[in-house]
């Protein structure tokens, strides 16, 4: 009895007190207890599924983007024919977040080795193998000092497939023509292998790149596609650095403006698809939550049916219809919040455990990772929880509307 009195003292207003009693329903009414648990459990499972699905997607996308960023130039400024390279280089050096810069040229070509021809993208570098061609093995990265180090850098996979040793000669052919006594001829050079880089498995285009010193590249492809490759300092944000560069360029009108491209521009389509994919998964899994919300309406209706006489008594004692509606709206809210919070906690914990334990294995030679990565993002979690609570509160509102129609005297007569 003392416990009961103490509990009563702690309670808030009528609506909260009654809703809490119905929510707990730990006494006598096994049906309501079961209904509450099924409803909250269904919501929890829906929310947990939503969080897990988004976490797996985020995990994959995060790893994929990491991979892509590692092997894509962070920021480059186009160098048109008359561009003052030194002026641009010094401009870039003055922008916070810029570590270094070097000229690179791009062009298409083919590699020819023992009758096998392979289409490639040639990349000429000015000072050293760019950072976005990582995992250099073999010769040294410095192609400017001549000798045996001046040569081609190929993807490790290609080197392995062609069984090339450092110094092995490969012919490079480009569509840029040279006029000869025999007529226009494509340009070609026989160049030694300087080393290899790791192209990863995320994008086949990375494996098709062939790097070589700038002067060799220019002799093969010209310099129509010439860029100042800007290497960012560790932790620098490419968007912020790009803004800094643009601002600096505006103060130097004699440079003729700046055309920048970042890894985001290069992979614009990929980023769009990733966002679209996430939205699609979100919408698909939200349907689970919607189904659970229908269960909430059904549960509230059943609870209301079983409590009809009590609602009638409360009405006879002076509880206004709007206040009785509030009781059931609160009850629906409690079921929704408990289910959502439980599901949120369950989904997050399971995602963290699965990620750390690497329980779900994948063939590493097929995918970019050897396990299913899970990444729970705070924003995703907030969106899931907020949208679920909103949907379920709407469902609770629909379920609670019927309470106001109950006539006290009809309910008591039954």
């Amino acid at each position: 009895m003392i416990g009961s009195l103490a509990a009563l003292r702690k309670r808030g207003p009528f609506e909260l007190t009654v809703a809490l009693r119905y929510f707990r329903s730990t006494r006598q009414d096994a049906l309501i207890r079961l209904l509450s648990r099924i409803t909250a459990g269904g919501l929890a499972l829906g929310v947990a599924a939503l969080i897990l699905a988004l976490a797996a997607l985020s995990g994959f996308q995060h790893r994929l983007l990491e991979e892509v960023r590692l092997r894509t130039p962070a920021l480059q400024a186009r160098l048109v024919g008359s561009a003052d390279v030194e002026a641009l280089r010094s401009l870039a050096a003055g922008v916070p977040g810029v570590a270094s810069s070097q000229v690179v040229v791009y062009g298409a070509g083919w590699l020819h080795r023992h009758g096998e021809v392979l289409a490639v993208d040639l990349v000429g570098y000015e000072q050293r193998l760019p950072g976005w061609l990582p995992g250099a093995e073999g010769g040294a990265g410095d192609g400017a000092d001549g000798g045996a180090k001046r040569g081609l850098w190929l993807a490790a996979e290609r080197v392995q497939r062609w069984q090339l040793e450092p110094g092995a000669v490969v012919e490079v052919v480009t569509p840029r023509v040279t006029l000869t006594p025999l007529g226009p001829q494509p340009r070609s050079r026989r160049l030694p292998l300087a080393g290899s880089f790791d192209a990863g498995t995320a994008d086949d285009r990375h494996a098709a790149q062939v790097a070589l010193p700038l002067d060799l590249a220019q002799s093969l492809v010209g310099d129509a596609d010439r860029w100042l490759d800007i290497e960012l300092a560790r932790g620098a944000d490419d968007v912020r650095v790009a803004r800094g560069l643009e601002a600096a360029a505006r103060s130097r009108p004699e440079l003729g403006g700046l055309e920048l491209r970042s890894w985001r521009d290069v992979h614009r389509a990929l980023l769009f698809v990733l966002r679209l994919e996430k939205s699609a998964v979100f919408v698909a899994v939200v349907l689970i939550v919607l189904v659970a919300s229908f269960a909430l309406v059904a549960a509230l209706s059943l609870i209301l049916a079983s409590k009809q006489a009590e609602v009638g008594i409360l009405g006879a004692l002076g509880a206004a219809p709007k206040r009785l509606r509030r009781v059931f709206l609160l009850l629906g809210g409690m079921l929704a919040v408990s289910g959502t919070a439980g599901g949120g906690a369950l989904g997050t914990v399971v995602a963290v455990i699965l990620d750390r334990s690497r329980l779900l294995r994948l063939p590493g030679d097929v995918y970019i990772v050897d396990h299913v990565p899970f990444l729970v993002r705070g924003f995703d979690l907030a969106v899931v929880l907020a949208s679920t609570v909103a949907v379920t509160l709407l469902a609770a509102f629909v379920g609670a509307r019927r309470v106001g129609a109950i006539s006290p005297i009809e309910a008591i007569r039954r």
Partner: protein
Amino acid sequence: MTEIAVRARGLSKAYREDAVVTEVLRGIDLDVAAGDLVAIVGPSGSGKSTLLHLLGALDRPDAGEIEIGGRDLGTLDRNQLADLRNATIGFVFQFHQLLPDWSALENVMMPGLIGGLGQPELERRAAGLLEEVGLGARLGAFPNQLSGGERQRVALCRALVMEPPILLADEPTGNLDPASGERVLGLLLAMRERRGTTTLLVTHNPEIANRCARVLTLMDGRIAPR
């Protein structure tokens, strides 16, 4: 001049089921002075309970007007009627109508909880009333742990906890054995006497009716002439 607590004019009420219309009340006129103790008697189906429900703002008449404490019930919406029931009218039903999942004390406190009474005051009042009807030791008991007479005593306390000026009792002893019924009735009469509560009491029992200051007899939906 005597203050009128309950006034009814031309009250009519019929129930319809499919094509069958049953006229229960046919033009009831009634004045009950503040502090009166009125018994409403009559055979089954004469409309006693229906009249009580209309006067208690639990149902609306098909025709006619009701004033409670000078307020015309016809002008009030459902939420306002509920507020009026809570503050002005205490009900005792034939079947106690206690909330099964709430203790005796909580049941008695419920109207106060609805009415927004402060918790300490409400608890003091509820416990005092239960003490008054001899249930001071059963505050924490749930309805299924109480006898029929005890439940009806809890219901009586619940009806009086808001200290309403009007008490409506619909055969409060009709479901009890004679001894329990007598105890509940005695308590009801004593408690309304102490509080000066205007009381309308529906009963089949002529002995109970004779203990009331005024007796109204309903016959075929009308108040029979004395």
